[in-house]
C-alpha cells in the first residue's frame, strides 16, 4: 500500500521483556516520527528522524526506549525491560519534508497497541 504501515498491530508481552515495533513510512518521505498515545490522551512525541539520524529524541521517556532508522526508510522502536506503564498505542508518522508549511503534514500509520502484563 501507499500509506504508513506498522507491525505488529497488537503486541502483548510480559513485564521485563524486550519488544520491537516496526514502521514502514511512505516511500520518499525523509522525516519519520514516533508517538505514544495513552488512553484518553493525544499522541505524545517520542522521537524524530531526518533521514538516518535521530534529529530530536527529547521525547523518549527514559533509556529503556531506543529507536533506529539505519537506511533512512524503515524504523524500529525498541523497548527494553518493559513496564506496565509502557502499555499504549505507539504511532509512527512520516512526512515529505520537515520544513514548515506544505509537505510538512504528517501521515500516520494505524499504530501498534502494546500491552504489558
Amino acid at each position: 500500500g501507499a500509506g504508513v504501515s506498522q507491525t505488529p498491530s497488537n503486541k502483548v508481552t510480559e513485564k521485563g521483556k524486550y519488544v520491537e515495533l516496526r514502521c514502514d513510512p511512505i516511500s520518499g518521505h525523509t522525516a519519520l516520527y514516533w508517538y505514544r498515545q495513552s488512553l484518553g490522551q493525544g499522541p505524545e512525541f517520542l522521537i524524530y528522524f531526518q533521514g538516518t539520524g535521530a534529529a530530536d529524541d527529547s521525547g523518549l521517556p527514559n533509556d529503556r526506549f531506543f529507536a533506529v532508522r539505519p537506511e533512512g526508510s524503515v524504523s524500529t522502536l525498541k523497548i527494553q525491560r518493559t513496564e506496565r506503564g509502557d502499555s499504549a498505542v505507539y504511532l509512527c508518522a512520516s512526512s515529505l519534508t520537515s520544513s514548515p508549511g506544505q509537505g510538512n503534514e504528517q501521515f500516520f500509520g494505524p499504530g501498534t497497541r502494546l500491552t504489558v502484563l
Partner: protein
Amino acid sequence: DQQVKQNSPSLSVQEGRISILNCDYTNSMFDYFLWYKKYPAEGPTFLISISSIKDKNEDGRFTVFLNKSAKHLSLHIVPSQPGDSAVYFCAAKKDTGNQFYFGTGTSLTVIP
C-alpha cells in the same frame, strides 16, 4: 504540562448543522497548527492546517480560525455529515524544531 488543550472531550451535532471544535494553546512560540481526524483503530489523518501568519484557512466544508492574541484556534465543519463522526485532534508546532504537540482530542458525533 499540556501545552495544547481541547477542553471539550465530546460534542454532538445534528446533521447539516455547524460543528465547532475548539483548541487553546499556551506556548507563544507555536507558529503552525493542524487538525487531525481519527477513526477507531486507525491512525490520525491530516485534515487542515494554518500558519500563524494567517487567521483563517478554508478547505471545502472545513475552516480553521486562528486567534493569536487569545492563543485559540477553532475548526468549523459546515454542513456536518454523519461521516464526520470521529475524534479530532488539534496539534501545534514551534517555529524551531519538529516536535508536534497534540491536544487530548474531541469526540464529534454527528446525528443523522
